[in-house]
């Protein structure tokens, strides 16, 4: 039986993993290659590396970081952050990524999804959607934000998820901007409705604080996978502990040997 995936996310700036609360007060958390290997050994099903470097010089560092991290990593490895063209995606694949995640650039130029999918296969393109809701309003009105959640696009989340799928995205990485950083739980209502609206798998992100939250987003939120970022810095020890707790709650997971 197909299992629910726990994806460990590393936020990387200038070649180092950083941790902070909602990108404020960032502190150094270590070397990406070492941390990725440690997450893989603990039973994480995939690794996502998100580059939060904004500068041009940082991009060269990113490719080097991807190369070093990929070298000893034999589970799926996704790289996102600032990928604007099929050529930039190709460089990241060459450096050892298996998938790329695109966000703002795909909203600005949806053709980017088609272009990467045609060259590298649909399974290699994850479309990341940052969603924000007005409290008390239905999910159908949830809006897509870009630029790290700062800029509204006027696009509806469900409609954009469907377009991304039609253009050949392999997965959707759905972040609830409202839940992000709260550690009060995922937005299960949002996740479930997006998951029902598309055929492709949906990865839930934003709001994780406890193992119970992960169980909820898999069972109520109908997520296929969930991203664990700061929860491994501030809460649950690692993927092994998280998965053992999920298994006890009846969630099918790949338990490490």
């Amino acid at each position, binding site marked *: 039986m197909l299992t629910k*995936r726990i994806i460990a996310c590393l936020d990387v700036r200038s070649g180092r993993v950083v941790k902070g609360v909602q990108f404020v007060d960032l502190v150094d958390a270590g070397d990406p290659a070492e941390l990725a290997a440690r997450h893989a050994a603990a039973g994480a099903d995939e690794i996502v590396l998100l580059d939060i470097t904004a500068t041009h010089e940082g991009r060269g560092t990113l490719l080097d970081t991807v190369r070093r991290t990929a070298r000893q990593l034999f589970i799926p490895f996704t790289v996102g952050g600032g990928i604007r063209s099929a050529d930039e995606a190709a460089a990241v694949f060459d450096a050892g990524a*298996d998938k790329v995640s695109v966000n703002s650039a795909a909203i600005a130029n949806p053709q980017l999804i088609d272009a990467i999918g045609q060259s590298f296969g649909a*399974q290699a393109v994850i479309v990341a959607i940052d969603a924000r809701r007005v409290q008390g309003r239905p999910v159908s009105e949830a809006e897509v934000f870009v630029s790290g959640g700062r800029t509204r696009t006027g696009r509806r989340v469900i409609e954009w998820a469907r377009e991304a799928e039609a253009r050949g995205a392999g997965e959707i990485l759905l972040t609830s901007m409202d839940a992000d950083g709260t550690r009060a739980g995922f937005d299960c209502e949002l996740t479930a409705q997006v998951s029902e609206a598309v055929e492709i798998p949906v990865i839930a992100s934003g709001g994780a604080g406890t193992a119970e939250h992960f169980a909820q987003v898999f069972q109520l939120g109908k997520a296929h996978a969930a991203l664990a970022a700061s929860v491994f810095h501030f809460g649950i020890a690692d993927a092994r502990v998280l998965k053992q707790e999920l298994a006890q709650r009846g969630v099918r997971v790949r338990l490490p040997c």
Partner: protein
Amino acid sequence: MIAVIDYRAGNLTSVMKALDALGYAAVVTAEPAVVRKAEKVILPGVGHFQATQVLVESELATAVRDSIGQGAPFLGICVGLQWLFEGSTEAPATRGLSVFSGQCERFATGVKVPHVGWNQVRVDAQSRLMRGVEDCSFVYYTHSYRAPVVKETVAVTEYGGSFSGAVERGNVMGVQFHPEKSGAAGMQVLRNFVELAC
């Protein structure tokens, strides 16, 4: 020497990296002559079955047939496994190598497609390719079409029915999952293949 065939379907970096980690030298090639001379041949691939059309048009398919005929071990990964069957409904005009009988088809309705993530394999204990991989081990899949279970199937996975996770006939082998992305179980499969006697 191991030849990894480049037919512009997906990315070869991860397969090369895994072979390197196992301590085996491999060359990426699109040359039929190099394929014919190689001790072992790997055909990776993610993407559309149509992409294998290039193999026929470039005479790589003939080179693979010759290589298999000489007894050189062959491993098809993902679409590379599907290509060993007669064809796929994904691209009906494109013919497979027909080493194994049957057509690859899209997953039936009722399950999410693509099938992405870690799923279990029921392992045939007699298999050389799957040797040392425990029954019910988890491996990583990402695909929308699957090959039927045939008499040469050596690993079976359930997802909206049973399909071939791995096939093996003599030295001709294929895996639908990605051994280069399947952690320790996947590395064991690759090690079994590269260590086969030629």
